[in-house]
């Protein structure tokens, strides 16, 4: 039992130590480097705002992984779902004429639906034919990413972008309000509210109950007459929906247009975020903040020491390895 609380802490500390060694090998004092990371994230209003900005999509993709994970499924496809959500929201922002107050809600709905639809494909294949969802969700990421690339190089390329693969900037009504003169935007609040809502859904509703049973023992779910197919399908859809919303928030809050590489691996980072939180939606907020910190701190390292940002991904990967390694060690005894 105690392990459950200790494991994330140990994984984080161990990853910090290993990354520290790597920094030292590059000739950088790890302690100083970590201090730089901290001061850049916490010492100013802009630092804090950036932290929230990076944390926002991570909360949502973390949930997109966490919900199916509770039902025993691996959603590796949050990245693709995010891209599809961003794409759909951009179409609404750029091509549909609406009363202003309806633009944002409709963009969000479109993002949610497309993220959900993108998750529905692997969910259906899994529920119906028991096709491995890890593979199908992963492969669909590439389809979604290249689809967006195709659109911005081709049909959706803007008129005022000098041959860059961008769409035009969104109209004002299609951008999320920002606060305090920073990049902090309404999406942060939305993400947190969604996390709280998901927490209550999983904890209190009959859907949440069924998800827990399916995740804990699929055979007991069959035995109890809980439809495993349905739960697999819906939990995956719910996850895809949140990743789609993350995509909408990214384009509407930060990028203000659609372009390639809108996500720097937020969908994949959702996996360690969910694991670190052991699937608990409230803890996802915390672990997403940690990864947000890594993103902000990582770019601080880049500007200060010209360490490649890749160090952030090394860190992420290490955390996953330590968590999974710890779990298999525990199973061994």
């Amino acid at each position, binding site marked *: 039992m105690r392990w459950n609380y200790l494991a994330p802490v140990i994984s984080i500390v161990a990853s910090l130590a290993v990354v520290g060694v790597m920094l030292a090998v590059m000739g950088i004092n790890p302690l100083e480097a970590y201090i730089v990371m901290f001061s850049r994230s916490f010492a100013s209003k802009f630092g804090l705002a950036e932290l929230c900005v990076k944390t926002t999509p991570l909360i949502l993709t973390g949930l997109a992984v966490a919900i199916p994970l509770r039902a025993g499924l691996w959603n590796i496809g949050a990245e693709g779902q995010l891209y599809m959500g961003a794409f759909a929201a951009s179409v609404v922002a750029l091509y549909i004429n609406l009363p202003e107050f309806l633009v944002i809600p409709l963009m969000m709905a479109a993002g949610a639906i497309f993220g959900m639809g993108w998750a529905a494909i692997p969910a259906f294949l899994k529920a119906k034919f028991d096709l491995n969802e890890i593979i199908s969700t992963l492969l669909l990421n590439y389809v979604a990413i290249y689809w967006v690339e195709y659109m911005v190089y081709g049909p959706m390329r803007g008129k005022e972008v000098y041959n860059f693969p961008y769409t035009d900037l969104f109209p004002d009504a299609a951008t999320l309000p920002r606060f305090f003169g920073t990049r902090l935007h309404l999406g942060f609040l939305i993400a947190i509210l969604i996390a709280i809502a998901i927490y*209550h859904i999983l904890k*209190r*509703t*009959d859907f949440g*109950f*069924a998800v*827990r*049973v399916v995740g*804990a*023992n699929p*055979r*007991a*779910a*069959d*035995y*109890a*007459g*809980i*439809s495993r197919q349905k739960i697999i399908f819906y939990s995956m859809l719910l996850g895809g929906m949140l990743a789609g919303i993350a995509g909408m928030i990214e384009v509407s809050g930060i990028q203000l247009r659609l372009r390639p590489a809108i996500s720097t691996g937020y969908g994949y980072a959702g996996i360690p975020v969910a694991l670190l939180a052991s699937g608990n939606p409230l803890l996802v907020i915390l672990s997403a903040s940690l990864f947000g910190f890594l993103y902000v701190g990582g770019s601080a390292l880049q500007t200060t020491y010209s360490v490649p940002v890749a160090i952030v991904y090394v860190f992420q990967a290490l955390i996953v390895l330590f968590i999974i390694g710890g779990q298999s060690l525990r199973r061994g005894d």
Partner: protein
Amino acid sequence: MEAILEMRNIVKRFGDVVANDHVNLKVRKGEIHGLLGENGAGKTTLMNVLYGIYQPDEGEIIFEGRKVRFKSPRDAISAGIGMVHQHFMLVPRMNVLQNVILGYRTPSDPLINHKWVESKVEKLSEKYGIDIALYEVVMNLSVGEEQRVEILKALFRDVKLLILDEPTAVLTPQEVDSLFYALKSMTKSGLTIIFITHKLKEALKVTDRITVLRKGKNVGTVITAETSERELARMMVGRDVVMDVAKPEVEFGREVLRVEDLWVKDDRGGFAVKGVSFSIREGEIFGIAGVSGNGQKELEEAIAGLRTPARGKILLDGKDITKLGVEKRNEIAYVPEDRIGVGLAPSLSVLENLMLKDFKKYRKGLVLDYEKMEERAKELIEEFSVKTPSLHSPASTLSGGNIQRLILARELSRSPRLIIASQPTRGLDVAGIDYVRRRLVESAAKGCAVLLISEDLDEIFQISDRIAVIFEGEIRGIMERKEADYERVGYLMAGGLEVAV
């Protein structure tokens, strides 16, 4: 008579569990010494200490007058001790001969002298009446035959002391008889045998003396001829037990379950149930006897709705339910054979497990009414005396007996018409066994139909009204309990065919 083995003050701990607590055991040369105790009493641990698998934390072992310390089974074997484990340890893909000589140096080592092995095995077979085809692959053997290979393997190494850990658990009554016969003839030629069991009748039948363990402690050693079932039970459990739940005669009501020409496939796609038909009435307990793996699992799953039959019909109260899913078979309570793997979500709480089938009934608006659920769960825990630290502890922390009580609480409280109980007392202690059987009998008395599927013939005979035998997916004879006897049922269980009279 001289002692061949003496274990003195053996202590073996696993973390906080004291599996053996200053146990003394004295075994005489040439006797069959019974080691009796409930599940978890520490029998296997004690023998593993003797066999060198575990090192004792305290105590000493004297074998043939010398103080010994076995660091591994290899040491024990070379000292002349053999052990047949509860779970067999043969290599399935090798043949019998290869298994027998595995780890043994024949005179022509490193080559295998087949002639020499054959003649040695032949002598042993003749001497003890153990028949076995030497070149058959172990995979193709029945459980009883595998056990003979294990015994042969030990005898082949010229053991002086042979330990058998619950050897009868997997055997049909006929196989048990021939095992007992072989054991007797072994002692006649000077071998000593330690026979582990938790079944009183067997201990009384085959042993010379019996040592009883209870909760890791030695309760005493008695001479078999001078003891009784009642005394042994008291020693084993620590208090008097009433051991006969009897099924009262009742008037049977309407037919509840009817199974017609049912064919069910197993996971590999072959037919595991082949044209089974029977029916059960209100108030009746219908017992299906049979060695595990003869189609019981597929049959019960088909009736419970977990497996779609390939052919045939299942009728509940006259309604055809063959095609309905589990959730539409609310009148069926199901106590599955694999309690932890199927009947439970072990990592979820006791509360959640109690509500596994009924949680949807507690919907209040958008959410579930956890207060009401807790209230109901408390009642159930009370009524079925499930011992748990709290409603929110994971079900996996409960003991085997309490897990079964939890499942019974959930299943029987849903006022079922039919109860399917599969191996419902396997692995439980005497008190647990008694409780489960009593509950089943009570439910029948209240008008339920009960389908009891069990390997335990005592259980079948104790509470069934009618008895059927399943063998290789077919029902071989259905009889009233009054007309049934162990020999006939055992004969059918082993694949014998009933001859029309």
